[in-house]
């Protein structure tokens, strides 16, 4: 099995086998990331395809200071944002009213990640992006505001809304399972 360095070298030389190997190593994880930023599988695959083309074309610029998957994730985020930027423009994010977050603490342990992906995909565009950036990627609200061209308050409110919605969905899920007696996944 080739090391990451060897793979990178092979990819830089244009070795198709190395590229395939790199793709196989990271495509599944990156697909999940793409699903979080998209509304459908097809959209996610489009983003993934675009991302890997960019990765192979610009791999020579990778300085190997960070991990490769982190670097690819950053590319996915940027690509997804560029793709969604039009939609974000169409649906401008504004401060939402104070949102009430359920007091009940809900656990995600019984929920499969595919369901979580569906829940994220069901969020509004702005909420989805902010939630992904803040909760999943670890951006601060300030960075998010700069990245998306919104105010910090908008970023916070959008995240709060996303959180509220997700928790509501989680609540529904858990109560559904309780009602019908099906085991949690």
């Amino acid at each position, binding site marked *: 099995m080739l090391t990451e360095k060897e793979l990178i070298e092979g990819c830089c030389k244009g070795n198709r086998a190395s590229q395939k190997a790199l*793709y196989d190593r990271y*495509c599944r994880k990156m697909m999940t990331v793409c699903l979080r930023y998209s509304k459908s599988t097809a959209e996610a695959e489009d983003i993934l395809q675009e991302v890997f083309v960019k990765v192979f074309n610009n791999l020579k610029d990778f300085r190997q200071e960070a991990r490769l998957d982190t670097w690819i994730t950053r590319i996915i985020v940027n690509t997804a944002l560029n793709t969604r930027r039009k939609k974000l423009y169409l649906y401008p994010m504004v401060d939402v009213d104070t949102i009430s977050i359920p007091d009940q603490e809900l656990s995600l342990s019984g929920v499969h990640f595919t369901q979580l992906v569906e829940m994220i995909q069901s969020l509004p565009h702005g909420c989805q992006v902010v939630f992904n950036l803040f909760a999943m990627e670890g951006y601060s609200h300030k960075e998010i505001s700069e990245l998306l061209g919104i105010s910090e308050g908008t970023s916070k409110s959008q995240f709060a809304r996303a959180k509220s919605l997700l928790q509501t969905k989680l609540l529904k899920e858990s109560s559904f399972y309780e009602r019908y007696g099906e085991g949690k996944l």
Partner: protein
Amino acid sequence: MKDMERENFENEWKNAFEQAEISPSDNLWTSIELELERAEGKKMKRKLLHYKFMAAASITFALCFAGVGFYYFSNERRNYSSDQLALQSTVKNELNTSALQSISERSNEGQLLQKKNEPLNQSSQVFDADKRADETDRAEENHLPFELKPNDDGKISLPVRRNSVGLKAAHQIQKRKPHDGEEFIAETRDEILKDKTNTESNIFQNESQTEKYTKANILLSRGDNVKSTKELRASGKPAAIVDLDKHFKDNLENKEISEQGTNISNEPPVMITSKLQYGTSSKDAAVALMRDNSSGSDHQTQTLTDNRERLVTKVPVGKLSTDPKNLDGNFTFRELPPLIETPKVELSIQKKEEDPFKVMMARLEKREAELAKEDVKELRKNTIVEKLWTSVGFAAGNVNSSNSSVSSSSGNNTMARAGNTSNTAINQSRASGTSYSAGLNVGTKVAKRWVVQGGLNYISQTSAYQSDAVVASPNLDNFRAASLTDVNNTKSNTKASKLVGTSNYRVNNNLQYVSVPLQAGYIIVNHTFAFQVNGGISTDLFIQNTLTPENSNLEKVTQRGDESSYRPVNFSGLFGTEISYRFGKHYRLALNPGLRYPINSIYKAGTGVVANPVTMDVAMRFRYIFN
């Protein structure tokens, strides 16, 4: 607390996706691969384009460079050629005009080796060919002709090349006796080396073999065929001077090295001599003197800076041939090698084997061309140009003389004397009738739309009028119709006959002319159907007129010439049109309505009648076209 809850929330979500993996569809890699291939293809295209540009730029640069080089090179060659021509012409001119008589020596060049106080019993010729050769070389470099400057004595120094054949041929090593000017001759290298018997002339005494050999070569380097003084005298060729001072250091008395030294090296010679004095030493320098057979040399003694004396001798060398290539005398020019050796290009045309198919195609093409020419000729032949034609025609029309007038001073006086008033003249002059003509015409096309035609026509005009007079014979047996002439002419009223008034009776007057028309026509429509406008003039020659009374008791009268009252020659203006139709290659049928108007009165001046009858007719002409 709330912050911690929020952080737990975010962490839970983050942790939930930590190990999450979903496989994309299988054809995603294919799509990615296609994209990569496309991107690489674009890169290759860009690279290829880049290389193409580089290649084009290189070729362009090379072509420009070649063009500039060619231009520069051809200019140089042109300059060289023109300079060479100038050089040859200059040399020729100089040789032709000056007829070189002598070779003069410059005062600061050359030295004559001469034994001190020894009379110079023979004229010697000295020149520093080395310097001259330098000048020659420089002149060659600068593409300048040789400088043939006359010296003070008017003699021109001949330029000599460093390795001149003439120079070699002119070399002679002269034997000189050390005591009394004995000459030394070295004929061959071996002789030089072997010449040990004569100690007085053994110049190689005590020299090593190498040195001897070197010296012998030096001697010989001045000329391959070194001959004896006697032989040279016989041939008239001068000898050259060789300076061997450097090689004769020992056993030479009063040796003085020339201030210019020698040119003894691997380079070919020339001569600078030194003044050597011969003592009683058995060795002496081998000195060659330039000698010739002519006399009358000029000697000059020059004192050098180191108080040495130098003898400069100018001698005539004899006439030189005007042909610089083959001088009759001392020197022979040889042609300068071309600066630029042009490679000989031999063109050889390889005979190719004839391809039978190509030969056949060529023949077919040739045949087609011939057929095309024939077609053109045929077309031209078939094309009717109607350059020359002839036509026969018939015309019919009417004559109208209503514009005629009769003067009061006419011959009616006769009738007045007769007691009768005759209106014959008036009626006759104003009679209208018909006109018939027939004739032959010839025409030709002088321009695309202009034709000229002429012919010969016979015109007969008949008119009827009422007459009220007859001419009776003297015995009153015969009566004839009275004409205008009879009315106006007193002759008719002679004793032989006289004019008698009668009741009106009808008379037919028939005039006959021969008309020679000349017309120009302008073709308006020139096709099978043609339309043409004609205009011209005709000369009408009167033939006769016949008066035929309708009354059978009266005789008709035919009048010609002086008997007639009509002008013998009349001119008429013609105007008409022509509508024609061509049928066949040579035929055209034409309809010519026309008008004829006599310019002058058709009656003689003495008749007192002025009549210009207008004839309007329509002619039908049948034309035959020659070409």
